[in-house]
């Protein structure tokens, strides 16, 4: 067989492998997304969707302060959740990867991600009961006399952030743990040979090498958190709205799919912007 024939054969084989993924992406992302873009330029007038092209749905987002505030709330909550989750997940992943004996690591990891196995909605409602005035936290604090009146924990932004952090710490623990396990112990040994103490080794060697794992987890956290509707809806008590809740209001209350499409595209633009900002770190291979 000639070199050219081998090359053609290899190319066809490669296409065969990639084709299902391409078709899948085309059917379930590109086409629906294109339709959503078109829909966002239509208008809902009365009970009908009118197929005239305009940017009114986008203009409405900037004209209505409560819409814009929804994006601000989403960003504030998402950034808080991402930072808190990293701060909690990193030490946990570190302990599992570096301090727990090898034979127990798998069990420790399973324990760390065990809450993943329960339904997302059920977990949110469970948090609502835990944080309620009559919930276990308030009752414990009242019981040991630390507080005289129940704390207002449920139906607040704090409750939303707690619910999110509980979920995303698990996700970040996995990505950071995977990154830590890839690190050769020779890096730490070399740093020690050169006179660096444990803290310095961590700050100047380990931490920079695990940034890709942190950033992958952080980006996933950002994307999933900023697009989430369930947690703010259940735990936030509608004290404020995030952008996905406003999108759902357009669908559920107004059947206004064009407005919902426009808001969804704006949300995607925010995610794309964050992706561009963090793209240089979003590499799974180690330098």
């Amino acid at each position, binding site marked *: *067989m000639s070199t050219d*024939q081998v090359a053609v*054969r290899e190319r*066809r*084989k490669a296409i*065969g492998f990639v*084709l*299902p993924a391409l*078709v899948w992406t085309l059917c379930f992302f590109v086409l629906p997304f294109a339709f959503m873009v078109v829909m966002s330029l239509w208008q809902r*007038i*009365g*009970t009908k*969707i009118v197929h005239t092209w305009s940017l009114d749905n986008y203009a409405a987002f900037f004209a*209505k302060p*409560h819409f814009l*505030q*929804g994006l601000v709330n989403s960003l504030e909550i998402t950034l808080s959740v991402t930072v808190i989750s990293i701060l909690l997940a990193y030490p946990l992943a570190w302990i599992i990867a570096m301090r727990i004996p090898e034979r127990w690591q798998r069990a420790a990891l399973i324990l760390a991600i065990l809450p993943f196995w329960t339904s997302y909605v059920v977990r949110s*409602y469970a948090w*609502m*009961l835990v944080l*309620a*005035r*009559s919930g276990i936290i308030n009752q414990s604090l009242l019981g040991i006399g630390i507080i005289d009146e129940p704390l*207002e924990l*449920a*139906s607040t932004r704090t409750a939303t952030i707690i619910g999110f952090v509980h979920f995303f710490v698990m996700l970040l623990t996995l990505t950071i743990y995977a990154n830590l396990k890839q690190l050769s112990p020779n890096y730490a040994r070399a740093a020690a040979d050169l006179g660096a103490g444990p803290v310095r080794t961590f700050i100047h060697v380990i931490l920079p090498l695990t940034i890709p794992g942190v950033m992958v987890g952080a980006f996933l956290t950002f994307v999933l958190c900023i697009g989430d509707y369930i947690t703010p*809806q*259940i735990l936030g*008590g*509608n*004290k*404020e*709205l995030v952008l996905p809740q*406003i999108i759902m*209001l357009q*669908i*559920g*209350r*107004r*059947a*206004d*799919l064009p407005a919902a499409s426009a808001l969804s595209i704006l949300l995607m633009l925010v995610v794309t912007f964050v992706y561009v900002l963090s793209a240089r770190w979003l590499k799974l291979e180690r330098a």
Partner: protein
Amino acid sequence: MSTLSNTRTTLSRRQILVSLAAACALFTVAATPDAKATDTLNALVWCDHTDPALIEPFEKANNVKVNLKDYEGTGTALSIIEQSQPGDWDVFVVDGVDVPRVVKAGILAPLPADQLPTGDLFPELIMAENHMKDGKTYAISEKFGYNTISYNKTKVDPADMKDMSIIWSDKYKGRIAVYDYYLPVIGMVALGLGKTTASLSEDDLPAIRDKLFAMKGVAKQVGEVVSSQTAIATGEVDILVGGGEWVTAGLTGEKPELDWVLPDQGGVRWSQSIGVFETSANKDLAVKFVQYILSPEGQARLATSSCYWAMPANAKAGGHLSDQQKAALRWDDQKDYLARSQLYPVPSPELDQKMQDVWTEMLQK
């Protein structure tokens, strides 16, 4: 070798295409909502219709399968209908105040009025102006209740609950939940301001907006059905604005401390209506289902559905309810309650949009 190689490549590509086509075909079949059969009925309903205790007797009696899709809010229902194919749905349960616009949109078919127990309904529930057009009946009331004030009578002074202004007063600040449905709550605020729900206009919105904002300031949460019920049932809040028998009646056994009242200014009455889709391919069975739901037995089951309790539209259902159930539904007070309550506001599309903007502003405040 080269030929063989090419043949194998071509075959494998064919196989891939065939597989993809088969997968697409399978997906199409799987994605088609509930392959229709003559003995199948597809109903778009509020969640109270999903109680097996209500549906199973009809299924057994007629040897049919009733597929139910529940929704919350007419907007959602219209969205579902828009995304469906003609013939996908047979029966539609919708807010009574929304029937005219649904009829105007051509969604409902005329019903055989002579085969419906209209004469047995509470007179206020006949609502001919909503259910009839050009002499034809398109829907019939099946259930009703009140969006008013539910409360824990061991935690608040019941006398305070008789004044609608309590919902924006700071006397119970942080102990109030608001049901997240703009129409009834805006109606309640309007009643509290001395307005009537039927005459609301854009000019009334600034005053209503102020009171909504004041109410939000003293509320602990604004939530949908489940979180509202959970909040008052678990003691997270002591008052539920927009509540009523639909929140508390089903809980009277285990939570006797929960109660509800129509304030002196009155309350907002909601009602559900049932009709048959114009595009239904199964109209006879659909009418049969409507007749079953409107029968005294069906009405008693619907009134005490596990999702939420409320009054049956058919007054003859009382014979199939226990004294305890009737007491929870305030059966004997209905004459007074019906007289003192007003229907949901029915805004024009423009006013509806403005009301929703005010409501969203309130949520975001």
